[in-house]
């Protein structure tokens, strides 16, 4: 087991910069999600850490040892692939045994370790099956058992749940987390699914166009995004743009929005505020006028009912603001209704516009 340090890593494919000066410290034993849209460089970063591809510049260290020029077969990593990549010509047990047997381990040791790994993923009785006789979730577990049986220093997962259906995915998320805790292995997990990243990981790194946009625990990124991209990519956010007043912004129509968290900026520059839809209160009439409350008037243009909550789209000054209201059974607003939106400055994040 070991931590992974990535420092100033860059990699270009022709004119395309797949990774641009990325530095992340993956703590020993942590569960880390790399999140980003396709083409953001998250898979490239994972493959660099695995050793399938070498960086142009920068350094990768596993357990303090520089590995950026070490080929994958010598890095002692475990990897789970999106399509599982099980060897179809071998039984489940032989698949799991592969890593140990290419190292020349003794047969008895291999058999015991394989059984332990299969028990850990709850497939103890299926060792003699062939991969094609298993369901998607079972194959996933075999791939995981195969990756961890060699006691790798770090476990790399490339969208491992991408091919599973929704219900199985939630099960596997819990299962994966349990196994990771049980063996305490440093785990780096690539996903484009923000919910998966939020629920499973200790820390999240958001990538965009080869650069690390923001990095930190899920709560921190969600509550204090440092860019419009981070705010809108991880969860939903309303972005209001205007000129800074130092601790907030003034919208083009003169309304002042106070922000409680985020950066403090020199007055007069362009900036934006991000507000999560579930933090906004929606009311008819004059609403709750309060010095410490941000307030905007608007008109409901659309309502989407989703059972436990409703999403309202409120139009104001040619901008649509999204509001999510829990279904408490009290208030139902009709489309076209004039409403007042209010939220606290603490729920408002000031973001510098670059």
């Amino acid at each position, binding site marked *: 087991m070991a931590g992974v340090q990535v420092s100033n890593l860059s990699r270009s494919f022709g004119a395309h910069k797949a990774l641009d000066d990325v530095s992340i410290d993956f703590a020993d034993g942590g569960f880390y999600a790399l999140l980003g849209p396709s083409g953001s460089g998250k898979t490239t970063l994972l493959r660099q850490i*695995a050793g*399938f591809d070498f960086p142009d510049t920068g350094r990768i260290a596993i357990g303090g040892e520089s590995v950026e020029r070490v*080929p*994958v*077969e*010598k890095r*002692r*990593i*475990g*990897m789970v*692939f*999106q*399509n599982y*990549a*099980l*060897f*179809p*010509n071998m039984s489940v047990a032989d698949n799991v045994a*592969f*890593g140990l047997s*290419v*190292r020349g381990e003794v047969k008895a040791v291999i058999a015991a370790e394989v059984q332990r790994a299969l028990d850990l993923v709850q497939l103890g009785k299926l060792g003699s099956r062939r991969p094609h006789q298993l369901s998607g979730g079972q194959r996933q577990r075999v791939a995981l058992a*195969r*990756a961890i049986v*060699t006691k790798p220093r770090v476990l*790399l997962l490339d969208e491992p749940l991408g091919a599973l259906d929704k219900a199985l995915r939630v099960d596997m998320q819990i299962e994966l987390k349990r196994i990771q805790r049980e063996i305490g292995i440093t785990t780096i997990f690539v996903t484009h699914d923000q919910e998966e990243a939020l629920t499973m990981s200790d820390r999240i790194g958001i990538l965009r166009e080869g650069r690390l946009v923001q990095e930190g625990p899920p709560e921190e990124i969600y509550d204090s995004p440092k860019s419009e991209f981070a705010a809108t990519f991880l969860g939903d956010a309303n972005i209001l743009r205007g000129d800074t007043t130092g601790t907030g912004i003034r919208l083009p129509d003169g309304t002042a929005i106070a922000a409680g968290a985020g950066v403090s900026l020199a007055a007069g520059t362009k900036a934006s505020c991000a507000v999560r839809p579930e933090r906004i209160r929606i009311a008819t009439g004059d609403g709750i006028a309060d010095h410490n409350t941000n307030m905007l008037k608007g008109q409901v243009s659309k309502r989407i009912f989703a059972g436990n909550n409703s999403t309202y789209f409120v139009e104001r000054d040619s901008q649509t603001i999204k509001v999510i209201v829990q279904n408490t059974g009290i208030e139902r607003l009709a489309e076209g209704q004039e409403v007042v939106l209010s939220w606290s400055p603490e729920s408002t994040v000031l973001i510098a516009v670059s």
Partner: protein
Amino acid sequence: MAAQGATASRSGLRSALPLLLPAYLWLTVAIFLPLSAMVFFSFMTDLPLSGKPWALTLGNYAAFFSQSLYPTLLWASLRLGLEVTLWCIVIGYPAAYVLAKVLKGRSREAIFLLVILPFWSNGLVRIFSWAMVLREGGILDTALNAVLPFKISIDLMYSYPAVIIGLVHSYVPYMVLTCYLTLQAIDDSLIEAGRSLGASRLQMLKRVIIPLSMPGLVAGAALIFVPVVGSFMEPRILGGRTGTFYGTVIEDQFVAVFNWPLGAALSFILLAVVLVILASAAPVLRKAA
């Protein structure tokens, strides 16, 4: 369910019949009838076409066993088939691997075309061009002597190696094609998974890639071994006097000696031996595949 399935496949067969018939009619006319005639000839004392009297006999088959020449030549032909097949694997498999796993896009198409090219040229032309290359004072001899500072004499013409070279050249595309197809079907992530587990390239080849491409190797080997054992053109032209094999003897019976019954009998013995070899190899090969 089972009964339903059977009904479905029966009605499926009926509707498929018009599609199957032309092919099977053609096979019947073009292969089965002449072949039956050949079976009949192989039991005759002489050809009925020549007007001479004829009778039924087992003598043509007995001739194979009474003269040590025929078994010896058959053995030589089987060895030739084995050797050519092995060379085709040695030469063709790496090429197929590079085509399937290393090259991409246009360069793959170009190299692929070079592999297929022999198929587009006439077999006789191919063999005679080898004759020009291999003979003394031929292209290989001249070229080597032009480059090398010392004098060497290359005369491979009318030798066993010349026969091997000609046959391997003719048949290696089959091995490349069949292996290419199975190698290409192997997902690249399997190779990456193996490497991430610490396997060297050689271990990957031995434990994953070769087992998974075994069907292609077997198909290629069967496609090459069977015709090479019966080959006569390459041995005759490139082998000269050393090129006497079972196939050339059969050909002699048909075109030189006009002993069709003996030629037919020798052909069917060859067919039987090849079938026995393929059948006895089948369980081993199926397990490997």
